[in-house]
């Protein structure tokens, strides 16, 4: 196995295939920790991880916090109201103050693209991107890859569909990077007004026909649609969106028998995904959440642990 020499995880764009696979391998061996009676290993004892969230989050923040705790790191949660922030201290200043207290890692989520890069360029502390604006959400894509690999045994050659608001989705961008690097064939689908210009240049296909997409997919990733897209005039109505792009049992009639339905959460049930499908036989949504923990443990372990190798038999 290759050496891990990354100090921060900013995006999947900067990771190569081998590095992505190394995270997945590491997660595989760490997943077991959460199944033990004592759900803790001492790998990161004495390390401090700060969760610096400028956007609200339940699942991702909890997942990172649990991941750190299961590796015995100390965690601190800082939730910053964005509007209060914009007038006072800058993001960089806040992070510099944290660094002065000798924290080992800052996990950051921010509404602006590039904030993790800004911190990584100016600090020595390890930075993990937990979502930056519309750019990337690398641990989400890693956990999606992990889940698919667990369920289907491979990524290469799979046909993956991503449906929804591609324009504003950092999950879509990270997944496109991850899937294409591991050899899957990605098609994105959504309203034309929510399709980012030049998206084809990332190596994906574009379709506006969700039924055609469903027919050929091994994996269908459904994205959350924000209610404000109607107000911002991207969509005539949420109702029409649900009718044209919402995934329900009826639309899945032509799907492959072992299709995987994924969603990064939180779901708008009845809008982009019907409850029936979200809880149905094809859905792996809760597996994604469980695997998210393992992936984040792997990321923390690789960035902060005794570098170099996956933990043997831990």
């Amino acid at each position: 196995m290759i050496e891990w020499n990354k100090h921060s995880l900013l995006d999947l764009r900067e990771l190569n295939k081998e590095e992505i696979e190394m995270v997945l391998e590491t997660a595989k061996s760490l997943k077991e920790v959460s199944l033990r009676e004592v759900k803790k290993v001492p790998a990161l004892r004495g390390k401090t991880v700060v969760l610096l969230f400028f956007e609200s989050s339940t699942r991702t923040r909890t997942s990172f916090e649990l991941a750190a705790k299961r590796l015995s790191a100390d965690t601190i949660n800082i939730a910053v109201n964005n509007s209060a922030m914009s007038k006072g201290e800058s993001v960089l200043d806040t992070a510099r103050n944290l660094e002065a207290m000798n924290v080992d890692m800052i996990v950051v989520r921010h509404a602006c693209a590039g904030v993790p890069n800004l911190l990584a360029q100016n600090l020595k502390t390890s930075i993990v991107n937990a979502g930056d604006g519309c750019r990337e959400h690398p641990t989400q894509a890693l956990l999606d890859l992990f889940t698919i690999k667990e369920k289907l045994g491979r990524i290469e050659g799979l046909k993956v569909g991503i449906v929804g608001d591609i324009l504003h989705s950092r999950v879509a961008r990270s997944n496109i990077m991850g899937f294409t690097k591991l050899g899957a064939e990605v098609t994105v689908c959504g309203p034309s007004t929510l399709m980012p210009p030049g998206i084809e240049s990332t190596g994906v296909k574009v379709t506006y026909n969700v039924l055609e997409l469903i027919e050929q997919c091994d994996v269908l990733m459904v994205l959350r649609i924000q209610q404000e897209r109607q107000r911002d005039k991207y969509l005539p109505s949420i109702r029409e969106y649900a009718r044209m792009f919402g995934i329900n049992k009826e639309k899945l009639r032509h799907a492959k028998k072992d299709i995987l339905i994924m969603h990064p959460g939180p779901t708008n049930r009845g809008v982009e995904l019907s409850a029936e499908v979200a809880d149905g036989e094809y859905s792996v949504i809760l597996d994604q959440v469980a695997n998210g923990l393992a992936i984040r443990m792997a990321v923390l372990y690789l960035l902060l642990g005794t570098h170099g190798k996956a933990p043997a038999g831990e």
Partner: protein
Amino acid sequence: MSLWIKNAIIVNADKISRKPQDIFIEAGFIKKITASSDTPQTLSKGGAVNSIDAQGKLVMPGFIDMHVHLRQPGREDKETIETGSRAAAKGGFTTVMCMPNTNPVIDNGMIVKAILDEAQRVGLVNVIPIGAITRGQKNEELSDMFELKEAGCRALSDDGKSVVNSQLMRLAMEYARMAEVLLIEHCQDPNLSGCGVMNEGRTSTLLGLKGDPGVSETVIVARDIELAHYLNTRIHLAHISLKRSVELIRFAKSQGIRVTAEAAPHHFTLTEEAHESFDTNTKVNPPLRTKEDVEAIKEALKDGTIDCIATDHAPHTEEDKEADFDHAPFGMIGLETAVGLVITELVDPKIISWAQMVERMSAAPARITGLCHKGEISEGKEADITVIDPHREWEVRRQDFVSKSKNSPFIGRTLKGCVEATICQGRVVYQREGVPGL
């Protein structure tokens, strides 16, 4: 006061002197130009006048920048008339026209006079304020154009934004035609550009940054060309950044429509890929575009579709720029790097000639703004002169900027061609360290 520039190869927009010339300056004007070989020995031996030896240098009419932000009044922490004048002098500019998006906005005669007084006190370069087209740049009612003109404005602009309302722009153009004052349009439809922070396209998609589509510029370019045609008047288009805009302007000129345009050095030297690092010093409005656009701007500067080069010098404090990409302000400083960038990127690769450089940086802006005693080195003209070393290579270094702000994406770059001395109204206002003379 008198000044003698010896051994000058004089570059005018239409002619380069074949043999070295001596330029004699008195009372701020060019009194006499003679072949250096004809200059009496007695004069060259006597120490009666100050002199500069321009041996091996190019001597050009002082550069005129139609588009700078001096930030005074209002944001003196970013730049002042004094520091901006110093930056201009160091950059070879003898005249700068400062945009009215100050606080308060330059929309009445009192503020124009206050700026002119301060520029006079500083006494380095000519500072000519540009007044607002609409009062308070609010896009609601016209400013008092006659008052602004009488106070000293030669041009009006709502720079920073377009005059969005087409009817208001029509009225502004009609009124400005009567008042004989130039209108400068910042071409950007705010509804289309939205919260965009960079050019919309493949790179904005990759970086997850909000895109400002090129069409936000071109719809206003096209609209203003049509208004100029309909009203049979003229319009000057600021900081053109796109191939499509160039094509529209080229078409308009071929039809005889009186449109003129400027381009900024960063738009013919940098592309949107510069944002990959999320360096906020690359964030500028209009945004950096694609390679194709950069090539089109160069071509337009070569064939004259774009008449002149203007820096859009936009100083910002480090505190303001040290933000995330979305919240950092737009703009970069440009006065001190313009000459180096023009020579390195346009003259040295033979895209434009030395004479064309003078046309784009001095003669054309003088003509467009009606400064009939500037833009040329000849007897009787004002003694605004820039001396250039065409060969000297230098590195852009943060600590060397004399502008109050240091927000340049060119720091670290090596440029060819540098300003040796700047003479404004017959006075040496800048001389590079180590240059002999005086």
